[in-house]
């Protein structure tokens, strides 16, 4: 009988872990006093072409890897935001072979998305597939119409 309780306990632990994961997946957090990102030191790209243009009001940086299944979908959605709103620049960094960059930004999952203000300071960060409405809200706070 005791074994059955342990089986149920194991199920409960796994379910709890799954629910915590589901509740936090794609949830971002606002950062204050975070670092300024130096684009000169980041291999940022737009559609595979090296680009270092900061947005007038905000910049979105997506960290991806070649083996990341959900990165292309997020790239399309963020590129849409850039297209629809003025003053926003969307850049992508492939960290597949740049573990130094992944370590610097403490990236443990891809995609990871950073929102930078006009001074290129990180103000928001989300690991996993972001909720697009939260990104839009963050952009609005930076004066993006």
């Amino acid at each position, binding site marked *: 009988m005791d*074994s059955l309780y*342990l*089986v149920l306990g194991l199920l409960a632990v*796994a379910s709890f872990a*799954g629910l915590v994961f589901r509740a936090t997946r794609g949830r971002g957090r606002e950062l204050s006093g975070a670092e300024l990102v130096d684009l000169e030191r980041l291999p940022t790209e737009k559609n595979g072409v090296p680009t270092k243009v900061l947005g007038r009001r905000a910049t979105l940086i997506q960290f991806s890897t070649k*083996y990341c299944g*959900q990165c*292309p979908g997020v790239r399309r959605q963020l590129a849409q935001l850039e297209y629809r709103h003025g003053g926003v620049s969307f850049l992508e960094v492939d960290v597949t072979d740049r*573990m130094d960059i992944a370590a610097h930004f403490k990236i443990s999952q*891809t995609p990871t998305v950073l929102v930078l203000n006009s001074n290129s300071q990180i103000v928001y960060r989300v690991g996993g597939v972001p909720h697009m409405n939260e990104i839009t809200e963050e952009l609005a706070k930076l004066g993006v119409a």
Partner: protein
Amino acid sequence: MSSQIDPRGPRFGAGITAALSLIGFYLQLEGIAASATFTLGLFVLFAWNVFLPATHPYALIFQKLVRPRLSAPTSLEDVRPPRFAQQVGFVFSLLGVAGLALGSGELIVASFAFIFVAAFLNAVFDYCLGCQMYLVLKRFGLLGK
């Protein structure tokens, strides 16, 4: 670009693995000798997936019986993270086999428990624990390219 797969394939396999490991967990706790079959069975299934993934029974059942009944996948995922997750599973199934060899019930129980939690999270919550470990382990230089 490396090969892309339907992400529901690994999830389907994880569901079977979760069921097998939970049954094994219970049998081992009850001291029923048949649990050795589950330890060895999981070891063979993981080894098969690591060394000969194309002929694996999970993959064949999914292709022949499951996928024809599903709608087209909304997205494909890279084969590397789920394959890496299988290698992680393989290491933990090896722990169970070591437990058998050494006569250590604790090792066998721990092996079943870890395999169950990882497979359950993958099957039910679409959270691939092994895949998440990929970037972190690579970051700390524990994996080659």
